[in-house]
């Protein structure tokens, strides 16, 4: 075939073309697609490459970015859609490269030639648990199939319809199974981690959480204090809402209360529905072991028995250590810090719980900037901003920011260059499931600007020294880039709040009410 010659000096550069290629019934998960798109974008002559499953929201995103053609618009949700912009020559090479990029390695130990199951109904009957991370519109269906086959379900996916979540959890309860999630970030069952999980020392504490990053923060603080984790059960972010009614939390309570290796049950959640909280606390009072309940920022009277109610993640860990007879970490004092020129906080969290916790000290902050559109310039509002970039708004059609740093990096760049910024706050979550070097994409953005010309960046690292990324090494990299470190999310939020507004007595009491009401 005759090739179009490359543009030579003196001739106008070749016109960029937009091309959509559709592969029917060729599913790949969003991480694989992102990785492939990254490789294609790196090819010479390719301006933009995007690989998505051709769902309606994904097609809308491509259309917004001017990357959707009539071919792509005809694709169906089960089809893989490859959208490319670049020179004709480069597009040919990119299309040719797609297949090799999407070929999956055969997992070790599996016989080549034996068909890999496609459906949960095809799995080995001895399978006890399904780990589900498919796109949200399909996730509840997979979980229901798992339950019907007698498997417990761990559902990492978000964007799951609420009515399906309720159905799922009712079915799980009926069948004597546990449905963790949807939107369940982490779990640790008999030492087996699921989702995002840190390398924790084994021990005697059982955790239940409607908050994945909250569980990770508390379990890492317990680890640092010398306490170990026996079990960790995630319930999904909406479990303690009025509609779901704490179904999984209550089922998890039964499991941990009956587990003789559990000496203490620790419960963590974003602000729960008051009636659901009351129901859960009533169950906690009947528990055979002490219970620490961390309802972030929500005031609940202590229900009696051996139940302690606290309102911060740091207080949750400290209280559990004290109840078990240990010594909590001493209070931490922030060093003096020179703020940026503007008046506003820019807190850009990957962990939703950290955003909740920070909002307790700055309730007036903006909570969302709307969906992220690749290529569009980000503008930050003239007010405090506390974002949960792992929220559905930002993750529809793309992986969680703990896997894919693109969205957070774009927000960080905007925050660092905005003259309205006084201080930036970042969380860095380590452990299994997170990237090999989560700090790198953040420091790459920060180091674009000389340290004197940028507002201060406060960060905290959630992890242990046994994590694959090594918490100590990641902290050193942050320090080397001029980032200020806080020991916990709670301390980071308080530090940042101090920089944007003088500390008030009321806020002080909120953040230090560390289980004083037991």
């Amino acid at each position, binding site marked *: 075939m005759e090739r179009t010659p490359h543009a030579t000096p003196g001739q106008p550069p070749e016109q960029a073309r937009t091309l959509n290629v559709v592969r029917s019934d060729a599913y790949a998960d969003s*991480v694989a697609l992102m990785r492939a798109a990254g490789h294609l974008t790196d090819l010479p002559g390719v301006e933009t490459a995007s690989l998505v499953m051709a769902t309606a929201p994904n097609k809308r995103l491509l259309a917004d970015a001017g990357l959707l053609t009539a071919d792509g618009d005809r694709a169906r949700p089960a089809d893989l859609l490859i959208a490319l912009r670049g020179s004709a020559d480069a597009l040919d090479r990119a299309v040719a490269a797609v297949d090799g990029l999407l070929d999956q390695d055969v997992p070790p130990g599996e016989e080549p030639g034996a068909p890999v199951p496609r459906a949960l109904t095809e799995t080995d009957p001895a399978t006890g648990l399904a780990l589900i991370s498919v796109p949200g519109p399909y996730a509840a269906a997979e979980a229901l199939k798992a339950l019907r086959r007698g*498997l417990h379900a761990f559902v990492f996916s978000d964007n799951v319809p609420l009515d399906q979540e309720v159905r799922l959890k009712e079915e799980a309860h009926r069948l004597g199974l546990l449905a963790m999630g949807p939107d369940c970030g982490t779990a640790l069952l008999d030492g087996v981690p699921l989702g995002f999980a840190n390398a924790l020392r084994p021990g005697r504490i059982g955790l239940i959480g409607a908050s994945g990053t909250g569980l990770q923060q508390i379990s890492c603080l317990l680890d640092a204090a010398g306490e170990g984790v026996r079990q960790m059960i995630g319930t999904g972010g909406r479990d303690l809402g009025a509609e779901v009614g704490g179904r999984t939390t209550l089922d998890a309570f039964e499991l941990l209360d009956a587990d003789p290796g559990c000496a203490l049950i620790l419960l963590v959640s974003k602000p729960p529905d008051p009636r659901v909280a009351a129901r859960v606390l009533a169950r906690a009072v009947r528990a055979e072991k002490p219970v620490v309940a961390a309802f972030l920022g929500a005031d609940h009277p202590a229900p009696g028995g051996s139940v302690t109610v606290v309102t911060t993640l740091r207080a949750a860990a400290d209280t559990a250590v004290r109840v078990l007879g240990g010594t909590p970490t001493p209070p931490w004092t922030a060093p003096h810090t020179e703020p940026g020129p503007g008046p506003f906080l820019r807190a850009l969290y990957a962990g939703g719980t950290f955003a909740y916790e920070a909002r307790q000290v700055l309730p007036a902050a903006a909570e969302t900037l709307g969906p992220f559109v690749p290529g569009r310039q980000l503008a930050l509002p003239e007010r405090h901003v506390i974002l949960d970039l792992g929220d559905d708004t930002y993750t529809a059609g793309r992986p969680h920011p703990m896997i894919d740093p693109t969205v957070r990096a774009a927000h960080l760049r905007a925050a660092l260059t905005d003259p309205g910024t006084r201080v930036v706050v970042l969380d860095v979550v380590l452990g299994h499931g997170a990237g090999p070097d989560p700090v790198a994409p953040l420091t790459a953005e920060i180091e674009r600007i000389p340290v004197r010309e940028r507002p201060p960046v406060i960060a905290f690292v959630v992890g242990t020294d046994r994590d694959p990324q090594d918490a100590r090494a990641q902290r050193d990299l942050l320090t080397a880039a001029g980032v200020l470190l806080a020991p916990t999310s709670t301390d980071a939020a308080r530090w940042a709040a101090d920089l944007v507004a003088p500390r008030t007595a009321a806020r002080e009491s909120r953040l230090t009410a560390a289980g004083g009401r037991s």
Partner: protein
Amino acid sequence: MTAPALLGDAPARIASVGVAAFADVPRTAGADVTHLDWRPPAGGDPDLAWKLAELTGHARVERANEEAVARLLGVRPVWRDVRTARDCLPVLDDRATGERVLLHAGPPVDWADMCGPMRAGVIGAALLEGWADTPEQAQRLADQGALRFEPCHHHEAVGPMGGITSPSMPVLVVEDPGTGRRSYANLNEGAGRCLRYGALGDDVMDRLRWMADVLAPALREALRARTDGVDLRAVTAQALQMGDECHSRNTAASALLLRELAAPLARTAHGPDVLEFLAGNHYWFLNFSMAASKLATSAAHGVPHSTLVTAFARNGVEVGIRVSGLGDAWFTAPAAHVEGLYFAGYGPQDANPDIGDSAITETNGLGGFSLAAAPAITGFVGGTVDLALRTSRDMARITLARHEAYRLPALGGIGAPVGIDLRAVLDTGIEPVVTTGIAHREPGIGQIGAGLVHAPLECFRGALAAFPVPA
């Protein structure tokens, strides 16, 4: 059901669906993790995917499918008789109805929409019945609405390719002695220029007349000597051991069947002619295989809440399925293109889309589902013996049972996969494989090749959309 304990149950065996990297997390702790080769179920429609999940492991559906499979496997197809169609199919009894009715293959189709080979079959049948003297007259009759058309499947009958069955044609009668249930199929004309492939001409007409006047009475007389009829299940089971899959390859089964009746046939008036015809017809058993399969799947039809597929049939324009729990409705999609090998001088541009009732054999565990038994025909798709083995293994992923009588020697004698489950097809995206012949798209030419085709997912999606979730 006793739920497995979540805690304290080591070693954990986990199935991972979705992001491949997440499968590695529990592996770090020594868990045994299988990462699924998942794709969005039901062709990517989330509402259908949820409905599919609601039907999965549903107690009433499971019970219904057990019952449907038991009925299917309980059928003992016995060849009892050869009769004239109008004598045993009331719809074709023109003496009683005064109507000119023809049966055709596949889901319902009107004359105006019929493909070339099926139109040729209509013309040939009208000539055969003496309703017209010339093809032009026959065409006019059809154009004027003087002929009425019904699917074979609506009358417990099946016909290969065009499947046109007219009142005076002989049909074979297959019966289940346990229930008295019966099914019917016309007789196979052999290879080459045949009405079922849309060939027309004096040679085709002469053969059809000979089959009615000579072959059918001879078969009838020979059968009379066998009070128990001929056990088609036994013939099929043996043929699977001998390299047939009893849809596209019937060489062994035809020989076995001929052997059963050879002696009494030799004693009939036209014995040598009849034996010569049967000896030259490698496809002779196909119509028996189809009738036996129809008998079995019909027995499984009509079980409320059953997701078992009881028919897959093609009229050359549309393909359609029927599902046990969904009554008489057909769920259709445009007929697919057959991938295969062509006779010299023909190619894909000449091929009619997928046609014929013969895919009923697949719904009974034969054909593509038993491809492992027939390495000789994998060449139709440029395939290998490995491909044949894999095809039978894959079909087991979308079926509810193994056939207790039909065994596959190349797979260690395991039973043929039988009872296509609507749910499994949509959950895995594995489309049923059919081995089939290819007809020329123009009327009057005939067979031009053979190959493989898949039952399109679209039919199954339609059926799922219509399937009520039991309380």
